[in-house]
């Protein structure tokens, strides 16, 4: 008779082994054999001969036996596959339903866990987006691995350090271009501001580029054509321009017939020949038009020592990066022989190549980002530890339920899968909520531009920047992957632990269950120690950054940026003759003074705290020139008389420059205190004569030092060097930075200042209006960015760790209600009970702190280069953060302690 029949689902529940293909085929063969045998038996029983019976049976089969077998094998296999898949789907749906019900039953647990995970995953995803865009993602050009940035290398002479990121001069570039064999394409590029005058006057950023610039990057115009390959072969090549889509849309309404039209750029006429691909802003990052490099000023193209542009190159696929570098060094030798540097005492220059990818962000930004990524990883880890902690707590509450499931025959694997499904579901919900946080985070990060990149972007390409940070598919995949991994890992461990004990043990509530609770509890204590240690490392990192920032902000910069508005004005080429510039300056300053509330108005050239603008050599008339290595350098600034009172830079000796120091009159200049000390130690510099290698101040017998002014810093983290100020009137320049001081809110002064300038110079472009405070803030932007993010992460970590301590102590109190009840019944006073619980919480925190301090001392070493005037093991920082953490630990364990002290001994003793 039939022995037993089981539904397939039941069989799966009992984990009967899944059937292999062989088993399925054997089944089919057995059934077929059984059928044939039954029929033969039947026929023989009716009197047929066995041979005839066999023949009849085969006939009744309906087809050739082998064919039938084959067909049946296939249909049976198809059947098994189909049924198995359906069972999987069913089981999964069942698990998910079960998990969702389980989570919904405990809304408080679910909410805390989801929120914790959301914070961890969200913050990590946001920072990952930044790391991905700024560091990881390949550059958006064809085969970006082949792109290299080529630079010149200047020698270290005397105490003056060389650089391996020196820009190129045109003669050196052509020497290289015409002899090199390692690169399939090379192209110069240099970002510069230009003024458009056909139509509305507008200042735009553009690039002087080599003819093969777009080809090198693997791009081609979307409309029109590229430059001819030979367009930059000789000085005075074709006057052609390629424009970007933003300019094309803004000025020409995206009209394709613009090709062939004339665009007047810096008073020169260029024929528009093409439209660059959408979104392309050049390697400098802001360009909207591209001019052949040969259209730049003749002296910029003929002087071998006029270094002003970068070179990008595409390495031939057959040439390795090492071979390319070797070729650059060989070229460097040749270049040094062809164009020796007479200045540098004949010390040899060289040439160098780095992957363009390495030039995408400044090392300091890269380092900060990686540190932040590490920090946010810690936050995520703490969040995970907290959730694991919660899971452990739940798992020990569910031991009976799990034991019952196992007793009715659910295998351990099945139960583990149930629990893991639940934790994966939890993590995925957390991940979904995290996307909101990540979205807000990426929006905030993309707004960090341009301060940081503008400050540190010198040696880097500007096309990779914070503004490009988005919550893209990569980031979404990252968030999903992290959530999934957390769900599996942090669900698996508690699940394995919870299902480890044997059924009979767990079912016997009472005696045996205590060991289980104790075991889970020690696990949770361990997790709290880990959590505190992690939080401490983060606190240390953020504490150091914040202290470093405070020190930075407390620095005396030597000038007062408050209540000053600044903006730039460019006198277009051919706009005013050199001789009429001083008159224009006076007119401009007078008009600015006429604005109500303006107390000072002046012209400058290079704002303080901007990293300095240019340097040149100082020589002394009538003295023998020392060798190159010992020649002093000075920073050169231009100023109008009121510049110093506008920025509140004090006069230390001598006199200020005045309106009487005019064009054509005796040349005078001011020097800062650091310069006075460096050039004339222990002497009065007033009345000395110097020659300055710029601004026409090197002619004749040079200029007279008429006064000494206070130092103002160019870098927030280093003291001022030698700096001289030349009067605008005696050394006219077309680029002007206007400074206006007012008692009024300077930000609201903008329109009036613009109108005033328009009155004097209607056709001169005005741009880059910022308060001086904002400009100065740019100098600390990087530090503020790191400090505020690290601080935010540390605060999150601290709260999460506090929640962790609270959770464990609350559980400990709950588990010891009886013991505490006895203590109180025996007369222990309630304060003592509180101290007992708090003491235990603090003990855990202390252990975590010890581990954490060790970890922090190691981990914060990577921050050394980011810290200003601070060592990574700064004792004040450590004492402070340990105190903060200790306070948090006391608060977190005091809440359950208070509950413990209120235990009613009568109630407590009745429990169980």
């Amino acid at each position, binding site marked *: 008779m039939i022995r037993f029949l089981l539904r397939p689902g039941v069989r799966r529940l009992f984990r009967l082994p899944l059937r292999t293909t062989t088993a399925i085929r054997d089944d089919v063969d057995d*059934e077929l054999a*059984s059928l044939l045998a039954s029929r033969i038996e039947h026929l023989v029983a009716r009197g047929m001969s066995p041979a005839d019976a066999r023949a009849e049976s085969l006939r009744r089969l309906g087809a050739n036996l082998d064919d039938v077998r084959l*067909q049946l094998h296939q249909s049976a296999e198809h059947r098994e596959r189909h049924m198995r898949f359906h069972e999987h789907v069913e089981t999964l749906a069942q698990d998910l339903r079960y998990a969702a019900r389980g989570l919904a039953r405990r809304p408080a647990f679910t909410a805390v866990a989801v929120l914790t995970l959301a914070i961890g995953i969200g913050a990590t995803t946001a920072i990952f987006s930044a790391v991905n865009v700024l560091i990881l993602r390949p550059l958006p050009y064809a085969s970006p691995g082949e792109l290299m940035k080529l630079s010149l290398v200047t020698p270290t002479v005397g105490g003056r350090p060389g650089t391996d990121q020196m820009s190129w001069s045109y003669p050196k570039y052509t020497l290289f271009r015409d002899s090199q064999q390692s690169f399939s394409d090379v192209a110069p590029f240099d970002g510069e501001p230009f003024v458009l005058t056909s139509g509305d006057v507008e200042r735009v950023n553009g690039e002087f580029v080599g003819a093969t610039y777009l080809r090198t990057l693997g791009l081609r115009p979307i409309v029109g054509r590229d430059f001819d390959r030979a367009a930059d072969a000789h000085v005075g090549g074709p006057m052609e321009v390629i424009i970007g889509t933003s300019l094309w849309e803004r000025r020409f309404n995206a009209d394709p017939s613009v090709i062939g039209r004339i665009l007047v750029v810096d008073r020169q006429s260029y024929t528009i020949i093409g439209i660059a691909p959408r979104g392309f802003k050049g390697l400098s990052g802001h360009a909207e038009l591209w001019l052949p490099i040969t259209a730049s000023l003749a002296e910029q193209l003929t002087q071998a020592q006029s270094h002003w542009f970068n070179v990008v190159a595409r390495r031939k696929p057959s040439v390795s990066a090492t071979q390319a570098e070797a070729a650059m060094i060989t070229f460097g030798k040749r270049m040094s022989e062809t164009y020796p540097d007479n200045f540098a005492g004949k010390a040899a220059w060289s040439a160098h190549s780095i992957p363009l990818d390495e030039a995408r962000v400044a090392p300091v930004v890269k380092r900060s980002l990686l540190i932040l990524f590490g920090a946010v990883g810690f936050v995520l880890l703490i969040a995970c530890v907290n959730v694991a902690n919660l899971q452990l707590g739940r798992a020990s509450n569910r031991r009976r339920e799990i034991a019952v499931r196992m007793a009715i025959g659910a295998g351990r694997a099945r139960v583990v899968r149930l629990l893991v499904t639940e934790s994966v579901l939890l993590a995925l919900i957390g991940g979904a909520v995290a996307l909101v946080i990540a979205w807000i985070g990426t929006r905030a990060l993309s707004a960090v531009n341009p301060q940081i990149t503008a400050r540190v972007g010198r040696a880097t390409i500007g096309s990779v920047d914070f503004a490009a940070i988005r919550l893209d598919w990569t980031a979404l995949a990252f968030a999903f992957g992290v959530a999934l991994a957390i769900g599996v890992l942090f669900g698996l461990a508690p699940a394995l632990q919870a299902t480890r004990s044997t059924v009979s043990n767990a079912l016997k509530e009472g005696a045996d269950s205590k060991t289980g609770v104790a075991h889970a509890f020690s696990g949770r204590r361990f997790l709290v120690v880990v959590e505190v240690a992690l939080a401490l490392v983060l606190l240390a990192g953020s504490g150091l950054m914040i202290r470093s920032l405070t020190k930075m902000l407390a620095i005396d910069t030597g000038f007062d940026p408050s209540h000053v508005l600044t903006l730039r004005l460019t006198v277009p080429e051919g706009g005013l003759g050199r001789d009429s510039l001083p008159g224009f300056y006076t007119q401009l300053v007078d008009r600015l003074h006429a604005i109500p509330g303006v107390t000072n108005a002046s012209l400058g050239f290079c704002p303080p705290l901007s990293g300095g603008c240019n340097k040149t050599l100082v020589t002394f008339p009538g003295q023998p020139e020392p060798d190159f290595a010992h020649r002093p350098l000075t920073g050169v600034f231009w100023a109008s008389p009121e510049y110093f009172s506008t920025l509140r830079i004090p006069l230390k000796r001598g006199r200020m420059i005045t309106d009487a120091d005019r064009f054509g009159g005796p040349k005078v200049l001011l020097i800062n205190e650091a310069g006075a000390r460096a050039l004339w130690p222990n002497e009065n510099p007033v009345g000395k004569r110097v020659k300055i290698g710029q601004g026409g101040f090197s002619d004749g017998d040079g200029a007279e030092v008429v006064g000494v002014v206070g130092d103002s810093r160019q870098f927030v983290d280093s003291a001022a060097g030698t700096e001289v100020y030349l009067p605008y009137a005696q050394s006219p320049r077309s680029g002007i930075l206007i400074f206006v001081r007012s008692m009024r809110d300077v930000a609201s002064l903008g329109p009036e200042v613009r109108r005033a300038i328009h009155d004097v110079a209607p056709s001169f472009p005005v741009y880059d209006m910022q308060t001086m405070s904002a400009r100065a803030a740019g100098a600390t932007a990087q530090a503020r960015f790191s400090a505020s993010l690290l601080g935010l992460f540390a605060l999150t970590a601290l709260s999460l760790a506090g929640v962790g301590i609270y959770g464990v102590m609350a559980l400990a109190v709950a588990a010891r209600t009886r013991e505490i009840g006895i203590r109180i019944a025996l007369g222990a006073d309630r304060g003592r009970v509180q101290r007992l619980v708090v003491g235990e919480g603090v003990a855990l925190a202390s252990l975590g702190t010890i581990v954490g301090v060790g970890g922090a001392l190691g981990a914060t070493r990577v921050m050394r280069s980011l810290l200003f005037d601070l060592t990574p093991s700064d004792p004040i920082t450590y004492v402070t953060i340990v105190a903060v953490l200790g306070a948090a630990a006391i608060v977190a364990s005091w809440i359950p302690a208070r509950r413990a002290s209120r235990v009613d001994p009568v109630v407590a003793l009745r429990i169980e």
Partner: protein
Amino acid sequence: MALLKGTLDVLVLKTLSWTPMHAFEITTWLEDQSSGRLVVEDAALLQALHRMEERKLIAAEWGVTKNGRRARYYRLTPSGRGHLRAESDRLVDHFDALTTVLAAKKA
């Protein structure tokens, strides 16, 4: 007589509606019930059984026959029972219609 498409399934389900059977029992039962007019090819029967098992209309389990032979026993599932009900109604209606038409006499 060859079976109309789709009728074999219903017939097999009907056969199984009283008690679980193995393949040979099914084909014998059908032959007996139809007084030998319904002869099903074994290959077609086994295919039909696989197909219906896949659709969860029937479930199978190995058992032992009266004669001590191992055989695969098929049993009707609840959804198989529902399918049988619906399909047999449909078929009966269909054949009734056919019979009516074919039996029509000239008016």
